[in-house]
């Protein structure tokens, strides 16, 4: 297993990239620690698969370097980098048995026969397919096939990292959960460096220690699931993560506080000095309260999800969502207030930290 350093990686699919828009990956500078479980999360076309293919060596970046444990591997082929990858659609060698599938990467590398047998048997135990060792891989279900694909990586004990490219896309919902927890368990026991690409936030948040959120070829935020939820760095992270996503309301800032229309919102900490930036307030639906106090709102509809209710309303013409507990009665003249703990302030879509804003204001 290895630490992976990405040094100022940029990648363009066009031959002569001129402007920033020509780059599928604008600039990525990041380190994946040895033994960490990382998720690359973002919408389709945000560059996450491009980044994964650059790590695996299927793509060569236009600019920048990749280091595995400090060794430059930018120009090395996929085989020489010694990584494993699990793809969106399960790739198995149809004509081979499960056992032969797992032995294949070792045979190609000229490993001795008894060593191959030992490692294949070990891996089969790990991925729970020992009883099916002599079955043809072709007849297995999608989730078993995906386990074989994973097994072909695990069997090589010296792999630098295991990469996953949306591996659960074609798996039945009830099996997704099983596979995900098995993967997590394997990671706990053997501490591989794992990079997992997905556009499913649940997958990313449950799998990874660190989630890398990407949008339009850039990393917008790297953090633990809690950080991404409580303190989204960018409004994109706010509404991409969470269901429903964070409410983003345009506000006016002056010496006294933030204002939505004619209503003032009290904020903790010092406000940034008046600037030309476009200011927005971000509040997750979990922190929106509906009651007798606050800003008058019109309720549009209520979705009942079983455990809780999602209330869709408007305040000052802005749509807003709130989550209330099941069984809560909604007042006839509803007013909306925000829990101060859940309020984030954004200038030009990037989060402003009240404390650092004060320091800036002092200079």
């Amino acid at each position, binding site marked *: 297993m290895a630490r992976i350093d990405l040094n100022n990686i940029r990648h363009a699919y066009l031959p002569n990239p001129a402007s920033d828009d020509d780059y599928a990956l604008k600039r990525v500078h990041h380190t994946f620690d040895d033994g960490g479980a990382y998720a690359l999360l973002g919408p389709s076309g945000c560059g996450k698969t491009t980044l994964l293919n650059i790590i695996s060596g299927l793509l060569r970046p236009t600019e920048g370097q990749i280091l595995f444990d400090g060794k430059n591997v930018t120009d090395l082929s996929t085989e020489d980098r010694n990584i494993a*990858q699990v*793809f969106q*659609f399960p*790739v198995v060698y149809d004509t081979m048995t499960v056992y032969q599938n797992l032995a294949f990467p070792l045979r*190609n590398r000229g490993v001795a026969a008894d060593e191959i047998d030992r490692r294949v048997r070990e891996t089969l135990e790990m991925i729970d397919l020992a009883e099916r060792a002599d079955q043809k891989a072709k007849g297995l279900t999608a989730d078993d096939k995906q386990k074989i694909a994973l097994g*072909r990586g695990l069997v090589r004990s010296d792999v630098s990292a295991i990469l996953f490219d949306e591996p659960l896309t074609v798996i039945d919902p009830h099996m997704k959960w099983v596979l995900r927890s098995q993967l997590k368990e394997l990671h706990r026991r053997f501490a591989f460096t794992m990079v997992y690409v997905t556009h499913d936030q649940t997958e990313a948040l449950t799998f990874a220690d660190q989630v890398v959120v990407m949008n339009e070829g850039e990393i917008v935020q790297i953090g633990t699931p809690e950080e991404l939820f409580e303190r989204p760095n960018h409004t994109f992270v706010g509404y991409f993560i969470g269901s429903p996503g964070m409410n983003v309301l345009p506000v006016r800032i002056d010496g006294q506080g933030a204002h939505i229309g004619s209503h003032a919102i009290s904020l903790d900490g010092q406000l940034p000095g008046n600037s030309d930036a476009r200011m927005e307030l971000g509040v997750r639906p979990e922190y929106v309260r509906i009651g007798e106090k606050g800003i008058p709102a019109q309720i549009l509809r209520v979705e009942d999800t079983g455990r809780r209710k999602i209330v869709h309303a408007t305040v000052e013409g802005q749509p807003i969502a709130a989550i209330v507990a099941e069984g809560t009665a909604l007042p006839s003249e509803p007013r909306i207030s925000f829990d101060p703990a859940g309020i984030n302030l954004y200038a030009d879509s990037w989060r402003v930290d009240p404390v650092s804003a004060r320091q800036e204001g002092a200079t």
Partner: protein
Amino acid sequence: MTKTWNNRAWFLVLPVLLLVAFNAIIPLMTVVNYSVQETFGNNLFFFEGTKWYEDVLTSDRFHASLFRQFLFTGIILLIEVPLGVAIALTMPRSGPWVSVCLVLMALPLLIPWNVVGAMWNIMALPDIGLLGYGLNALGIPYNFTRQPISAWFTVVLMDVWHWTSLVVLLAYAGLRSIPEAYYQAARIDGASRWSVFRYIQLPKMNRVLTIAILLRFMDSFMIYTEPFVLTGGGPGNATTFLSIDLVKAALGEFNLGIAAAMSIIYFLMTLLVSWIFYTLMTRGEDQ
């Protein structure tokens, strides 16, 4: 799910049934009728039972043309299938050359059978044809109207030229349908070029190749026009394949009973082989 049974729906199938009856079943039954009777003209028929079948099945002439037929089909399958796969593997997977290659490959398939025969006839003429003259100029005695070997060589070469494209196109379609991830996974697993072919490309082409072999088997087993135009079945009987022999018996010698019995046997053989292929293909599906 519940199924609704409505027997009036059979009426919807009736027009097709009539059509098939007129163009397939009735002619076939006529042949069956001829194959069990003797006629001396004047629309007089005498029932002969299985006599014609016994005659055909025990005749050396039938055995000889049947042998030639299997030999020919075997040779062209052995050449066209591996050659077609090899060509498909060397074709580009993307880019402007794809369409150029596809058009080039499709060209021989667009030429009518008798024109193919005529083209190769002229080309193979020893005195003026490029192939015939060229071979003789190189010191290789070649005359397809006199030497059985030369005739066979020409007929096989013509068929390979005409039909390898079909195998190429089918194999290429099979190759194109393999997702890129398979090749990427193979690179990650450190597979050699041969392993990629053996464990990814060949298994994925399995189905299209079965279809290619089936089509080439049926077509070559029924081959008539090209050798008829090129060699007329000669020299002697060297290239008299089943269908040529059948036409000789039916229209050259007016042995209606023999020809009809031969047709039925011929038909049953093709049916049997097609059934074997069908079973192989559907068995592959179940796995």
